[in-house]
C-alpha cells in the first residue's frame, strides 16, 4: 500500500513542479481544472481490482514501477527511431510526440485547407476560448482516477480543428513515442479534436514505447472528440507495442445530429493495454460504430471498456469487438449501452466474440445494458470458444492442411474488423501483419 502512495506522492510533487513552469498559463481557467483534477486524483488514488471498472485489470505493476516525469526533451528520438511506425505510402499530417511533448523536427504538417492543426500547448494560448469551451467537457474525470490524472497533467498533445464543410483527404497520424530507453518514463498526452459541421476527417493514433532492459514506459493518452452536425470522423487506433509498455488510454466523443463516428481499435501486442471509449449520441440521427480486434499472445493484457450513450432519439450504435487470444494472454471486454429516457427509437447493437487458442488464455466479457426508454431495439451477445472443428475439417477435405485451414479461418475472423478500416494502406498493412502472425503462430 505504501508503494501505491509513493507513486501518488511523486505525482503530487511533479504537479507542483509542473505548475512552476507554467508561468502566465497558471492563471488560465484551464489550469483551474487541472488543479481540481489533481486533487480528485489524490482522493481517488490509482484504481485497484476492487474497483468494478478495473476488476480484471490489475495495474499494480504499473503503479509499482518508478518513472521519470515531465521529460520535455524530444531530441532523444530520431527519424530512424520512428521510421518503422510510419504508414508507408500515405500522404499524411504526421504529428509526433515524444514523452508527451511535441517533436516539431519529426512532424510533418501539410495543413490542408480548412484545417487548424497544432500542438495542444500552442492551442492553450492561441485558441484559448475554443479550448476552454471543450477541454475536459467530455472526458469526465470527476469519478475516474486515470482521467483525473491525465487532466491534471494535460499540457500537450494534438489540437485538430476541421472547419465546417472541409473534407480532409489526408489522414492525421498522431504518433506517440515513449522513450524509456534511459529510464522508465511516464508520458501523459491530451488531444482535442473538433470536427465541424459536414466536415470529414480520418485520424490514426499509434503509441510506441522505446524500451530497454527492465525499463517500462507508461503512456496515458486521452482524446476528446467533438463532432458537429453531420460531421464524419474515422478514428483508427493501432496498438503494436513492446512488452515493456503500459498503456492507459481513452477516447471520449460527443456527437451532434446525424454525425458519424467510425472507430477501429486494433491491438496486436503490448504489456498492459487499457482502452476506454465512449460516445455520447447527443443529436438526433447520430451514428456511432465501435470496432475492435485484439490478437495477442505472450502475457499481454488487453482491456476494452466502451460506452455508447444514447441521450436523444433516433440514434444508432453498432459495436463489434473480436479477440484471438494465445498463450497466457488476457482479454477484457466491457461494453455498456446506455439508453436515456429521451432516446426513443434507439438502435443499439453490441457483440463480442473471442477465440481462445490456448488453454491458458482467458477472456472476461461483460455486456451492460441500461435502458430507460421503451421504444428501442437493443441487442448484445458474446461468445468465447475454440475454432470450429467442422470448419477446419471442411477446409482440409478440400486439400488445405490443418495449419492453412486454421490460419484462413482466423484471418477471416479478424478480417471482419480490419475491413472496417477505410484507409486502405493502413488496412493492407494490418492485414499483412495479421496474416504473417497467424502463419507463424500456427506453424510454430
Amino acid at each position, binding site marked *: 500500500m505504501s508503494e501505491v502512495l509513493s507513486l501518488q506522492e511523486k505525482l503530487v510533487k511533479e504537479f507542483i513542479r509542473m505548475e512552476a513552469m507554467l508561468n502566465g498559463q497558471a492563471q488560465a481557467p484551464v489550469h483551474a481544472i487541472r488543479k481540481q483534477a489533481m486533487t480528485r486524483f489524490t482522493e481517488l488514488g490509482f484504481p485497484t481490482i476492487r474497483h468494478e471498472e478495473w476488476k480484471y485489470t490489475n495495474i499494480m505493476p504499473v503503479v509499482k514501477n518508478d518513472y521519470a516525469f515531465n521529460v520535455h526533451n524530444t531530441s532523444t528520438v530520431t527519424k530512424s527511431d520512428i521510421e518503422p511506425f510510419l504508414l508507408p505510402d500515405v500522404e499524411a499530417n504526421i504529428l509526433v510526440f515524444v514523452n508527451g511533448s511535441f517533436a516539431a523536427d519529426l512532424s510533418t504538417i501539410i495543413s490542408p485547407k480548412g484545417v487548424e492543426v497544432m500542438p495542444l500547448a500552442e492551442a492553450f494560448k492561441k485558441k484559448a476560448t475554443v479550448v476552454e469551451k471543450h477541454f475536459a467537457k467530455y472526458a469526465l474525470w470527476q469519478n475516474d482516477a486515470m482521467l483525473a490524472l491525465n487532466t491534471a497533467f494535460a499540457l500537450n498533445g494534438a489540437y485538430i480543428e476541421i472547419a465546417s464543410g472541409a473534407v480532409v483527404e489526408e489522414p492525421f497520424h498522431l504518433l506517440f513515442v515513449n522513450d524509456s530507453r534511459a529510464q522508465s518514463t511516464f508520458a501523459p498526452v491530451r488531444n482535442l479534436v473538433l470536427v465541424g459541421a459536414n466536415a470529414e476527417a480520418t485520424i490514426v493514433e499509434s503509441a510506441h514505447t522505446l524500451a530497454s532492459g527492465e525499463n517500462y514506459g507508461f503512456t496515458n493518452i486521452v482524446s476528446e472528440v467533438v463532432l458537429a452536425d453531420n460531421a464524419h470522423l474515422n478514428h483508427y487506433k493501432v496498438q503494436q507495442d513492446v512488452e515493456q509498455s503500459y498503456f492507459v488510454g481513452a477516447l471520449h466523443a460527443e456527437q451532434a445530429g446525424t454525425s458519424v463516428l467510425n472507430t477501429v481499435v486494433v491491438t496486436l501486442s503490448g504489456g498492459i493495454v487499457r482502452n476506454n471509449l465512449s460516445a455520447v449520441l447527443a443529436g438526433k440521427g447520430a451514428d456511432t460504430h465501435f470496432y475492435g480486434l485484439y490478437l495477442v499472445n505472450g502475457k499481454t493484457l488487453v482491456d476494452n471498456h466502451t460506452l455508447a450513450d444514447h441521450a436523444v432519439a433516433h440514434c444508432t450504435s453498432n459495436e463489434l469487438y473480436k479477440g484471438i487470444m494465445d498463450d497466457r494472454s488476457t482479454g477484457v471486454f466491457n461494453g455498456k449501452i446506455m439508453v436515456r429516457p429521451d432516446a426513443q427509437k434507439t438502435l443499439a447493437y453490441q457483440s463480442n466474440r473471442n477465440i481462445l487458442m490456448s488453454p491458458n488464455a482467458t477472456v472476461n466479457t461483460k455486456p451492460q445494458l441500461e435502458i430507460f426508454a421503451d421504444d428501442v431495439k437493443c441487442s448484445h451477445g458474446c461468445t468465447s470458444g475454440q475454432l*470450429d472443428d*467442422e*470448419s477446419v*475439417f*471442411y*477446409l*482440409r*477435405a*478440400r*486439400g*488445405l*492442411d*490443418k495449419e*492453412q485451414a486454421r490460419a*484462413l*479461418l482466423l*484471418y*477471416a*475472423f479478424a*478480417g*471482419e474488423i480490419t475491413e472496417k478500416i477505410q484507409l486502405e494502406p493502413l488496412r493492407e498493412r494490418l492485414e499483412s501483419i495479421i496474416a504473417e502472425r497467424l502463419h507463424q503462430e500456427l506453424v510454430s
Partner: protein
Amino acid sequence: MLTITNLQASVEGKEILKGINLTIGKGEIHAIMGPNGSGKSTLASVLAGREDYEITGGTVTFQDEDLLEMSPEDRAREGVFLAFQYPVEIPGVSNTNFLKAAVNEVRKHRGLAPMEPKAFLNMMREKMALVEMDQAMVSRSVNEGFSGGEKKRNEIFQMAMLEPKLSILDETDSGLDIDALKIVANGVNKLRSKETSTIVITHYQRLLDYIVPDFVHVLYKGRIVKSGGKDLALELEAKGYDWIKELAQEEVTA
C-alpha cells in the same frame, strides 16, 4: 479405384460400421442406400478422414494406397472428394479465394504450378455454368447465407473445380426441391468420365432417376446386406426398407 475390406468403425465406443466390403472400379457409379442410422454418412466421413471416428478394423485401398493412413487433406489432394451433407458456412472467406487455395494445393500435390489468375477465372466460369451458379454467389463468403439448394450446388461446383477421381455425395439430394435436384444431378452427370468414380449416398431413390447408378448397395446396421443393379433402388422405393430389415434379421439368426 477403391477397395474396402471388412471396414469397422466406431464413435465414442459405439460400433457403427461392422465390416463393410465394397469394391469400386474406374468409371462406376455406386449408390449406397439404407434406412436412417444404418451408417451411410459414417462411411462417407470415414472415407474422407473425419477424425471423430475410430477405425477398429479392416482396410481401405485407394489407387493401391492405404487411404486410412492419409490425412484428410492428402486424401483430397489424391483425388477423394466428399460433398458434405451439411456444408459449413465460412464467413469472411470468399468462395473464389477458398477455391484458389484448394485448387492450388491439389495442383502442388500433383507437381503442377499454381494456376494463372486468368486461367483460374476461365475455369471458374466454365464450372459455374455446370451448376448454374452466378458470379454473385461465387463472390460471396463460402456458403454464408446460402439456401439449402445453393449450398449443395456449391458442393458440386467445388467438385467440378477440384476434378476428383472419386466423388462421394453424402445425401446431396436431401432438402432439395426437384429443380435444384435436377441441376445438381445434371452437374454430376456432366462431370462423369471413364476415369472417375462416384459413390452416391441417399435415403431415397428419387436422385437415382437422374444419376443412374451401375450398382446399388443397401446398408443396414453397419453392413451391406444386399447389392444389385439399378433396379434394386426401384424395388426399395416400392417396398420400403422393412423387407431389408427382415432379410438382415434372417441372416443373423441363420
